[in-house]
């Protein structure tokens, strides 16, 4: 009986958890996720993006790597996202290119999934809006 009550309570709590609706420009906000060559060897990534009415700007890993986003586009036909970010190390400039798609557009915690490439590497990319 007790386990039934617990089960039922959990079901009710899960089903009644509120979903948060869409807000302004779909890319604006803080996004957290991973990018890496594989699911096992992935690195955390934080992306901050903003929209001023004409341009999407932003930064990858602010405070740590500080990779500014130099070029960003959102194609509303399919909600395709293209980001280009540039940094440099001892070997010279590095350009990261990220291509993905917004999933769960209607929700606050929507995500962008796709791929990244740069520094001769590539891999999967997934971030979720915080």
């Amino acid at each position, binding site marked *: 009986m007790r386990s*039934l009550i617990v089960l039922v309570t959990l*079901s009710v709590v899960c089903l*009644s958890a*509120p979903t*948060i*609706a869409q807000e302004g420009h*779909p890319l604006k906000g803080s996004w957290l996720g991973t990018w890496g060559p594989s699911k096992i060897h992935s690195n955390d990534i934080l992306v901050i993006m903003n929209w001023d009415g004409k341009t999407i700007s932003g930064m990858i890993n602010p405070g740590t790597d500080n990779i500014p986003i130099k070029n960003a586009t959102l194609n509303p036909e399919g909600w395709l996202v293209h980001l280009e970010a540039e940094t440099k190390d001892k070997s010279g400039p590095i350009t990261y290119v990220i291509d993905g798609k917004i999933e769960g557009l209607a929700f606050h915690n929507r995500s962008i999934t796709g791929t990244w490439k740069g520094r001769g590497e590539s891999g999967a990319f997934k971030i979720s809006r915080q």
Partner: protein
Amino acid sequence: MKNLRTLLTCTGAVLLLASTTGIAHHALSAKFDDKKPTTLTGVVTLVDWRNPHVHVFLNVKDTKGEVLNWAVEIESPIDLETNGWNRDTLQPGDQVTVRGIRARNDSRQVWGNSIMLSASGRQVLKFTPKLPPEPLEKRPTPRWADSKQPRLGPIPGGVQGYWGYPTTTVLQEGGANVKMDQWGLLANIADAGKVAPMQPWALALYRNRQSRFLQDDPTYLNCKPPGGPRQFQLPYGVQFVEDRERQRVFVLIGGGNSNYRIIYLDGRTHAGQVGGDDDNPLYYGRSVGKWVGDVLEVDTRGFNEDFWFTNGGLPHTEQLRLVEKFSRPDFDTLKYEVTVEDTGAYTRPWSSGWTLHWVAGEELPRHLCQENRP
């Protein structure tokens, strides 16, 4: 065993309500499909008399003889009471026949258009929307004795009332004449681009919201305040409280979960309010106004992006600026005009306007949104 049965019955009712991911006081079309008319006959098990909509639970026998509990959703307590209902109109044990439309997700939920008591054949629910009160004669604009400015609100100790029954409940650019239902759902989604001059991303987002039948509306889903022009287009009206001593006007929002907005008339500007305080944008923004002749002109900026500023889901950004004009051409009419400037979501400023009616002798209805409650 009896306790277990009670527990399961209550749980079933809760799960039935919860199964729609919490659409609250929604556009009907968000949850129900008018192309799925249905008739149920069963026994009332529970009347849940709460905001935003009352639910009547019925035990209904299906074609296999199995008894299933259905949720019949009907209007709000406020609207039902104005139509002569109260929480005791139906009692558990009453056998009724319900006509309505089924939920889009085919769960055991119905929007009830009519409810008839089987025993007597008496129609207990035949909802008739309350019509705007017709004034007996055209009365002049009430004015302050000293300044001769129009009064927007009730007179303390005098004539009470509030503003309701907007002539339109949807926002679109003046002259657009795009066909929508009262909740802002387009009759033809191909007309989306005619509603307002949206940027491509905003138009695509608007179409997305429309294609989801407005079910993501945060005003109903999460009880978010109806900022912007929407506050003048919801059920239950608005009230103006003019505090002349402190040079401000309070706008009480009947459909906004008992929240309010302040319009400052003391000559302050947005400096130090917007720009200096960007980390705290508001649902109703920051409003400063002044009287220009008989018109109260209000400039509002500093909105956040956590809400829909129109029925129907037109997008906006934090760059939203509204220029609103309020006037009272006669005692029973409030004229509202708004110009929307949002370089983040629109390609140019655009305007619209409508009127509201004075509801004499009544207090602003007390409506409370209950989050995550269908």
